């Protein structure tokens, strides 16, 4: 007969242990689970995003009741166990059910501390621990305006953030002068405070609550020991938790602050084990998921009868704050003492603060605010007790600063035994093996099979990176973010559907993909327009009303409603005729300003809308065409003078620039697209911050991709080195077509390449010669069909209504126009 195992506490630690146990020894136990809450097992951590409205309750369930059935587990919910009879080896639940056990597991978690201030039992005082609390707060936020959160720790701030996002006015009351004093020092706490203040949160620090005020049994305010008080209608108490050990104590198990367990998680009764927040191990209590899951793994091994279950020896923990827009990491001893050194970096204008505490050349603690990308790396160094003397001078600049290449966000360079998911202790090796063994294709599948990124979610980018590295070209990146408010589908999903179902109109797309609105919103209208255009060029019928004004009237709208006109000046090489023509036009239409742009050409600023067609016509008589300065299209090809004049020039960069601009102009792209050609590696045309950069060297041309000079500067990656002009053209066309087809709308080449990886780009453009030629051909075809939009507009007068008023009302109401 099978042994009987009972779990008390249907929470994160207990159920994790059960999951691991049945994976190892599916037939060993008859399992019964008792849960006090009336739900299946859910991801408690995610209550914060649920409160903030960023996630829904159904998204945070870990195991459905069906799952328990499928695994032959007896589940009793909303039914707390009230008594353990160790002599009879039985437990008695609230509804009277009595079940006997061979092994009993306690995972009762913690209870929130409610300080018994006068008024603590009023209606409108709530803790932040479970679904019921969140439901109560969400309901309160609908009808009430003001909330106080007592407690400025992690939970208090996440509660305050959630209520703020739900439209409440929130004040955080904290006894100390430092927020999150267990995780932050005075400087970082002050910086965090001011960032949260910017988001609208208010604070009363060093404030000692006296009582909660009420009327008719409902909260109306909070008063403080200094005599002051504030009016509120909701009080959230987030002052800490206390291990839930009453049941264990009653049963006579050894308890201190928690239930005492050994390194195998066995209590003072050999048949009773315990795991999670309710236990005390070697004098320590843990309140975060990562260490609890480590305990669970050892316990599962032990219960499965493993000969070498391993031993739980304690954990180094780290904390992140789950407030959108705030990047905070903290771990270990953050204040140090006389025998420690501090290494500190502080950039107040970027709100970045980093501090490491070092003892005997080992990291003891880390606080990162504003840029926490290297948190896991520091945690690793701490856990491994790595001697950092060799990297001490660059340590604070992160993993990317040592050895040049490796970066904490670059999963390809990470060693296989590197831990990717701290919560679930999943190593890169496990993820890679599981992807290959099970043929996984999406992040969701990786989450389901490996549990990585399924708890706090902060490693989801790393998991996506590992998936992309492992699958290479096969990987279809999924962005979980919906394209816009009209749909739940991501930008990628929408593009895939358009491709697979051959959707060639907006109306068909909206209908077949069940968008919530029949003509969408500005975001999806423009994105769908682009996808149809790029995927079904022959079928696509342009609907100007789904384009942004600039692309509709082929000019850039200015703050006063006038427009700028920028004619194309191929390769930046102009002529007296062009310059004269522009000068004449500026005079003729009284254009207020003419200026050299940063893209090596002239812009006429302040052109009236009704003059646009006339200005274009005049430019056309001098063979000047649209410069697409307004478009998601190729903008400019910047050049330097090159070997025609320059004493260092090795190649004809001017000529190459003109060739490339003629090849690539007038084709829509997901985002703007810029090129540059330099005649030698001095690189005066700044080719290495362009989408496609060409640099002449003695023996030919280096081709670079994915540069960006705008909001976030990114240097290009070297794609390949080639010798002839024809090769440069082929690569330029192929890469641009590849980008047109595979990038998301509004994704420039820099983020696109960061997402798919330069190796993938090389595999498609450099290594696959046939594929490259095919892409280049496709591009040339797309290009051949297009005519200068200005000329087109003038020739067919289509859209002419844009430039004339519908009607003009004069005093005597005669129709003038």
């Amino acid at each position, binding site marked *: 007969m099978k042994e009987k195992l009972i779990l008390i506490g249907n929470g994160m630690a207990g159920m994790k242990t059960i999951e691991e146990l049945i994976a190892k020894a599916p037939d060993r136990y008859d399992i019964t689970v008792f849960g006090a809450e009336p739900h299946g097992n859910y991801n408690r951590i995610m209550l914060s995003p649920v409160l903030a409205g960023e996630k829904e309750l159904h998204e945070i369930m870990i195991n459905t009741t069906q799952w328990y059935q499928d695994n032959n587990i007896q589940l009793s919910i909303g039914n707390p166990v009230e008594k353990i009879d160790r002599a009879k080896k039985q437990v008695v639940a609230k509804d009277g059910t009595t079940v006997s056990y061979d092994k009993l597991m306690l995972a009762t978690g913690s209870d929130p501390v409610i300080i018994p201030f006068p008024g603590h039992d009023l209606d409108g005082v709530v803790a932040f621990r479970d679904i019921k609390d969140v439901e109560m707060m969400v309901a309160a936020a609908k009808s009430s305006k003001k909330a106080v959160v007592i407690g400025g720790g992690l939970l208090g701030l996440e509660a305050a953030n959630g209520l703020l996002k739900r439209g409440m006015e929130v004040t955080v009351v904290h006894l100390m002068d430092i927020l999150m004093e267990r995780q932050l020092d005075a400087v970082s706490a002050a910086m965090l405070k001011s960032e949260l203040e910017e988001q609208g949160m208010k604070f009363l620090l060093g404030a000692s609550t006296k009582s909660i005020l009420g009327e008719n049994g409902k909260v109306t305010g909070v008063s403080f020991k200094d005599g002051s008080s504030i009016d509120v209608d909701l009080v959230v108490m987030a002052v800490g938790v206390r291990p839930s050990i009453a049941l264990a104590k009653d049963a006579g198990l050894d308890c201190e602050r928690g239930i005492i367990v050994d390194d195998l998680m066995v209590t003072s009764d050999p048949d009773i084990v315990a795991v999670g927040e309710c236990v005390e191990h070697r004098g320590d209590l843990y309140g975060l998921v990562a260490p609890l899951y480590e305990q669970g793994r050892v316990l599962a091994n032990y219960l499965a009868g493993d000969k070498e279950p391993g031993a739980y020896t304690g954990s180094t923990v780290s904390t992140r704050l789950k407030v959108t827009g705030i990047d905070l990491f903290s771990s270990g001893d953050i204040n140090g003492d006389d025998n420690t050194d501090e290494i500190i970096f502080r950039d107040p204008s970027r709100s970045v603060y980093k501090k490491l505490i070092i003892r005997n050349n080992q990291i003891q603690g880390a606080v990162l605010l504003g840029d926490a990308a290297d948190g896991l790396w520091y945690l690793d160094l701490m856990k491994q007790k790595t001697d950092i003397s060799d990297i001490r001078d660059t340590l604070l600049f992160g993993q990317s600063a040592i050895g040049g290449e490796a970066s904490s966000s670059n999963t390809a360079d990470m060693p296989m035994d590197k831990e990717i998911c701290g919560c679930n202790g999943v190593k890169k090796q496990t993820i890679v093996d599981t992807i290959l063994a099970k043929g996984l294709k999406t992040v969701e599948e990786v989450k389901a099979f490996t549990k990585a990124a399924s708890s706090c979610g902060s490693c989801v980018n790393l998991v996506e990176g590992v998936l992309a590295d492992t699958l290479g070209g096969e990987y279809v990146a999924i962005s979980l973010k919906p394209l816009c408010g009209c749909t739940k589908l991501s930008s990628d999903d929408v593009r895939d559907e358009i491709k697979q179902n051959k959707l060639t109109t907006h109306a068909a797309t909206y209908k077949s993909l069940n968008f919530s609105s029949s003509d969408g919103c500005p975001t999806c209208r423009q994105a769908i327009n682009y996808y149809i255009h790029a995927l079904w060029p022959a079928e696509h019928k342009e609907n100007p*009303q789904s384009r942004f004004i600039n692309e509709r009237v082929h000019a850039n709208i200015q703050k006063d409603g006038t427009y700028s006109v920028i004619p194309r000046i191929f390769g930046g090489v102009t002529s007296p005729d062009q310059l004269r023509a522009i000068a004449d036009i500026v005079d003729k239409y009284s254009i207020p300003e003419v200026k050299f742009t940063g893209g090596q050409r002239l812009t006429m600023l302040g052109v009236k809308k009704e003059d646009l067609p006339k200005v274009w016509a005049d430019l056309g008589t001098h063979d000047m065409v649209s410069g697409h300065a307004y478009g998601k299209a190729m903008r400019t090809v910047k050049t330097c003078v090159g070997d025609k004049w320059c004493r260092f020039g090795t190649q004809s960069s001017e000529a190459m620039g003109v060739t490339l601009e003629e090849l690539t102009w007038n084709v829509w792209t997901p985002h703007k697209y810029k090129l540059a050609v330099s005649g030698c590696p001095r690189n005066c045309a700044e080719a290495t911050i362009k989408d496609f950069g060409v640099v002449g060297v003695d023996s030919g041309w280096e081709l670079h991709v994915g540069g960006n000079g705008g909001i976030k500067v990114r240097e290009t990656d070297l794609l390949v080195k080639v010798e002839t002009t024809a090769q440069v053209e082929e690569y330029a066309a192929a890469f641009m077509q590849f980008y047109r087809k595979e990038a998301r709308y509004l994704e420039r080449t820099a983020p696109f390449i960061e997402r798919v990886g330069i190796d993938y780009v090389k595999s498609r453009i450099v290594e696959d010669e046939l594929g490259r030629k095919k892409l280049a051909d496709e591009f040339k075809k797309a290009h051949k069909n297009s005519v200068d939009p200005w000329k087109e507009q003038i020739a067919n007068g289509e859209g002419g209504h844009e430039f004339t008023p*519908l009607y003009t*009302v004069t005093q005597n109401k005669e129709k003038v126009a």
Partner: protein
Amino acid sequence: MNSWINIGRIEDIPRQGSRVVKTESSGDIAIFRTVSDSIYALNNKCPHKGGPISEGIVHGEQITCPLHNWTFDLATGEATGADKGATGHYPIKIEDGEIYLSLSVDYVQ
């Protein structure tokens, strides 16, 4: 004074688009035609920074300003979402496909 001015036909405005009526007394007025052929008239001046809302994208019964994406309800001229503000709106009447505009302002900011 509530006299109707015939400003043109529905087909003169592209579906999901707009045209401008110029007036001496009330400045530019944007006339919108939605996907379902409803016609609306709003003061062509965004309450945010004066952007010409006639140049925005029409979606549903709303218009999004081209300059900084404020979105307005076409029927009332009121900003939607988190933004607060409104632009004047004018009565419209359609007879046999002809659009009539009245210059009496329903809402003045």
